[in-house]
């Protein structure tokens, strides 16, 4: 259920009466109906005449030396058309998002449970799977390194060593001390992105020796480049066509799927299709970094922060992937959206034989938020202050310095956000005599007992950066075409469900006054738009669409303006009509176009950023977003079951572009946060993934999801961002787990230092 009582724009839309149009209105998503009706095509639905089916053989061991691979039996099975191993990779054997440290197929070593070793194409999926199982692999099983603290001293698991990145951050005076000191050790588990559709794809060979990959890629050009390098082909011989994306929380596609698929299509000359099982999906894709955090906060007697010291250890799993980015975020935001004069952080991302970690919404920032907010609660307890009050005394604002030395130049209404959630009405306690109607922790027919239930209220403030950091070249290109009263947007930005296509339509409607706007599907024949992550497309792709649309607008109006001797600025377009400021001129877009086609292509590239230096200093971020969450939980203090009753959210959004979409993003984000807080943790004792299924890995259901109450959306425009808008998806994910933990702390008096919160951590033991 969602309650919005802080947005005026939501009511504006209703008041307007006509169909929503342009920026700031709830223009519905074009594919919503198809998705609801089940006709929206995903990669798993694709078909090609004569296609073969692929299966991937994965390592059952987290760490082993491969002594022999024999594919003879598998290749000889009737129906099998090709078997490929590391020996069949014509191009680069290694790949990776930032560092090429991951083999396409393991050759001499396997470094995590589920690592691809070989792939088979056959004329039936079961034949392919049986053949994959018939590949003989001899392993010399090695002791896995699964404790990230032991990775430093362990034998190198990889030629690149076990330390993927170390960031020391030094800001202020190391000898500064405060009167009040609190310490804490926090742990965050392994959240799986658990996309609702497992990985799938179709590879189709081309007559020119190239190949087309139909996959739910969230970064098609990067995937194409990576695939081309591995296939030993020029980039223009590989085309990635983006299919419907069934859920993406980060880098969606597992390259362990795309690469074998393409190799098999090239090898057999036939289309090859692959649909991962749920188990493979859990084994193959990247997870949220399990993290260990040690903190010491110093404050003065009034509760003002003096110094924050932290050690942050990210478990990267076997390969580097996006760990460097996650670490930069963790270290930079280690103290949270608070003003701290002295900050000293040591951050490490290390290699282990655990499941791979990578980019999952709010990476790095989410883990530290759980820890620094735990510290703020400790500080409040020690000072005898309200948790919200301690936070209020330290909030960051525009003009303050981050511990990285970067000045916060964008809006940072942190105090306003906190005030909004603090002052919001609390949800009522269950009333009525019929206790069976109460939804107690433990569920509808659970064991909950009102007498054992305690309610707790907790707060968290979170922050995360927008766009890639540390010198990433953030750029996107878009083309807008107008013809016959219809506009078309061509942009390779992938709509992962975040609503980019809807936004692109709104932008063009706004700028060109054309109602009918089509957004073409993405592929790599279009210019690159970069990954669908970190709120990029709202900013760079939205910005590129706006510029292109404005260029078309100028082309459209220039001749008119010239003819009537007025400047383009004095003309306006709405509902397909062009009018002048004085009403003298009035014509239609179609008439002005007179059968002509107008095209314009534009780029958006925000200002560059720096890499963090050897002291963790530098202007590493283009933009920042903030969020305050107040959680209300009910805890059965004997069983330790927790129900999140309500999450009140106040968020810094810059500008509301689409109220309904915005609310949906926040609801989705906090619900993912509730999963992290209470149940999601992919267990891998000794490196072996346990219960990789949707029964074994619990996700929040409708009963677990709380009421999400958006109490305030602060619309202070970020002047450097297109439309002044900020990305909205990640920061609720970052903040809500910490808020739930704070509320459970309040309800139980227990320290709650580990996410997800296990029942035993929420039990109040009777006095012995």
């Amino acid at each position, binding site marked *: 259920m969602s309650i919005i009582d802080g947005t005026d724009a939501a009511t504006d839309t209703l008041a307007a009466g006509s169909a929503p149009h342009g920026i700031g209105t709830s223009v519905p998503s074009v594919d919503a109906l198809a998705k609801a009706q089940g006709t929206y095509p995903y990669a798993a639905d694709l078909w090609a005449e004569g296609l073969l089916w692929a299966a991937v053989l994965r390592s059952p061991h987290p760490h082993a030396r491969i002594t022999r691979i024999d594919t003879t039996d598998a290749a000889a099975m009737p129906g099998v058309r090709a078997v490929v191993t590391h020996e069949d990779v014509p191009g680069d054997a290694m790949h990776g998002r930032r560092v090429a440290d991951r083999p396409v197929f393991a050759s001499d070593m396997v470094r995590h449970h589920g690592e691809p070793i070989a792939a088979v194409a056959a*004329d039936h999926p079961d034949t392919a799977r049986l053949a994959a199982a018939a590949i003989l692999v001899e392993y010399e099983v090695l002791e896995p390194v699964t404790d990230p603290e032991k990775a430093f001293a362990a034998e190198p698991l990889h030629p690149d060593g076990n330390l993927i990145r170390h960031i020391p951050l030094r800001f202020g005076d190391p000898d500064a001390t405060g009167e009040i000191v609190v310490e804490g050790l926090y742990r965050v588990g392994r959240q799986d992105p658990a996309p609702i559709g497992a990985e799938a794809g179709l590879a189709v060979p081309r007559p020119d020796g190239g190949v087309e990959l139909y996959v739910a890629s969230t970064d098609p050009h990067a995937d194409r480049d990576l695939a081309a390098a591995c296939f030993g082909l020029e980039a223009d011989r590989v085309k990635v066509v983006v299919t419907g994306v069934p859920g993406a929380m980060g880098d969606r596609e597992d390259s362990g799927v795309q690469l074998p698929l393409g190799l098999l299509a090239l090898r057999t000359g036939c289309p090859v299709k692959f649909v991962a099982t749920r188990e493979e999906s859990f084994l193959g894709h990247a997870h949220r970094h399990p993290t260990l955090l040690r903190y010491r906060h110093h404050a003065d007697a009034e509760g003002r922060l003096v110094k924050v010291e932290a050690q942050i250890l990210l478990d990267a799993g076997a390969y580097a992937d996006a760990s460097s980015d996650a670490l930069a975020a963790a270290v930079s935001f280690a103290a949270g959206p608070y003003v701290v004069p002295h900050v000293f952080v040591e951050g490490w991302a290390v290699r282990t034989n655990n499941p791979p970690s990578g980019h999952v919404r709010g990476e790095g920032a989410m883990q530290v938020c759980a820890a620094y907010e735990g510290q703020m609660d400790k500080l409040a307890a020690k000072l005898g202050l309200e948790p919200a009050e301690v936070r209020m005394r330290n909030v960051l604002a525009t003009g303050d310095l981050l511990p990285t030395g970067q000045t916060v130049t964008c809006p940072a209404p942190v105090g306003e956000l906190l005030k909004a959630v603090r002052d919001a009405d609390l949800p009522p306690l269950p009333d009525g005599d019929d206790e069976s109607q109460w939804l107690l922790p433990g569920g509808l027919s659970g064991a909950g007992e009102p007498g054992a239930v305690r309610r707790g209220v907790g707060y968290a403030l979170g922050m995360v950066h927008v766009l890639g950091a540390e010198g990433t070249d953030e750029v996107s290109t878009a083309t807008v075409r107008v013809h016959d009263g219809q506009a078309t947007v061509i942009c390779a930005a992938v709509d992962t469900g975040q609503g980019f296509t809807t936004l692109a339509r709104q932008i063009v409607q706004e700028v060109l006054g054309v109602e009918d706007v089509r957004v073409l599907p993405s592929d790599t024949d279009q210019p690159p738009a970069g990954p669908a992550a970190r709120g990029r497309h709202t900013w760079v792709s939205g910005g590129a669409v706006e510029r292109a649309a404005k260029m078309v607008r100028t082309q459209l109006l220039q001749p008119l303006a010239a003819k009537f001797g007025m400047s383009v600025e004095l003309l306006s377009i709405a509902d397909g009509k062009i009018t002048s400021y004085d009403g003298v001129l009035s014509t239609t877009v179609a008439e002005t176009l007179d059968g002509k086609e107008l095209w314009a292509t534009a780029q958006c590239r925000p200002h560059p950023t720096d890499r963090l230096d050897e002291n963790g200093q530098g202007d590493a971020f283009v933009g920042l977003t903030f969020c305050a969450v107040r959680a209300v939980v009910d805890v059965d203090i004997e069983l*330790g079951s927790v129900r999140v009753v309500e999450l009140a959210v106040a968020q810094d959004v810059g500008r509301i572009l689409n109220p309904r979409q915005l609310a949906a993003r926040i609801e989705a984000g906090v619900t993912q946060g509730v999963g992290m807080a209470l*149940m999601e943790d992919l267990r891998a004792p000794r490196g072996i993934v346990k219960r990789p299924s949707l029964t074994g890995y*619990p996700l929040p*259901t409708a009963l*677990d999801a709380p009421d999400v109450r958006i109490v305030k959306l602060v619309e202070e425009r970020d002047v450097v961002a297109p439309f002044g808008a900020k990305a909205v998806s990640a920061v609720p994910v970052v903040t809500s787990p910490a808020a739930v933990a704070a509320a459970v702390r309040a309800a139980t008096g227990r320290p709650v230092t580990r996410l997800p919160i296990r029942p035993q951590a929420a039990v109040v033991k009777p006095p012995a």
Partner: protein
Amino acid sequence: MSTYARQAAENVTLPSSLDEAVAALAAMPSAVPVAGGTDLMAAVNAGLLRPAALVGLGRISEIRGWQYADGAALLGAGLTHARMGRPDFAALIPALATAARSAGPPQIRNAGTLGGNIASAAPTGDALPVLAALEASVILAGPDGDRELPISHLLTGMDPMRPGELLAFVRIPLLHAPQTFLKATGRTGPGRAIASVALVVDPARRQVRCSVGAVAPVPLRPLEAEQWVAGLIDWDGDRTLADEACTAFGEYVAAACIPDQPGVELPPAALQLRRTVAALSRRALGRALA
């Protein structure tokens, strides 16, 4: 053209009576019965099982409902959790209805059956502790006719199902007595039990029967604790117990189910499980006596 040799069951029989089903199984000894498929098909999809043939039980109407027989209810093995969760059934066997309502999400409860729950015999099978506390018996239909045995004999493997046999009915003595089922899952949405407790207060036999699910491969009956608490109850009076007695009962049950290991400290997880069982048993008794 595909050279693929089919691995999945080609042969699916859909008998419309128990006799036909038994005959079908006799004719194809390698065939596997399937009811709601919520356990079986998950195993097939995971590649753990490749049945050569399937005998679908969904069309056997005689096992999809229930009837009364000599003070007992005779429940068809094909009763779904959804059906058992409805009010008319709840009036009959409340604890089983509660268990059925908590047995997974709605989609699963619409398909999953009582018989499947028993035959799967998962430690977290929610019907199982209830059947154990109610001292139910099962009626198996086989090529040599029917036979009836206590549920505990089946679950413990003392008297397992024989090849060719089908679970046909479950006989449950109808008690005009309070009964409860409580399940701890650690979450609010549907989930498998961390521990569950079924408890019956049976004035006719002056017994309290309690069964603890999910903590061991089969439901556990803490017999000593049952007898101890039955001895405290004033069966001819108002049948109430002091809170302390309920608490002590909870501790007793929990210690019986998760016993101390001589010379070793119980690990935190075991202690937590013990606390959970104690709280559930105490609450179950308190509610049954309320």
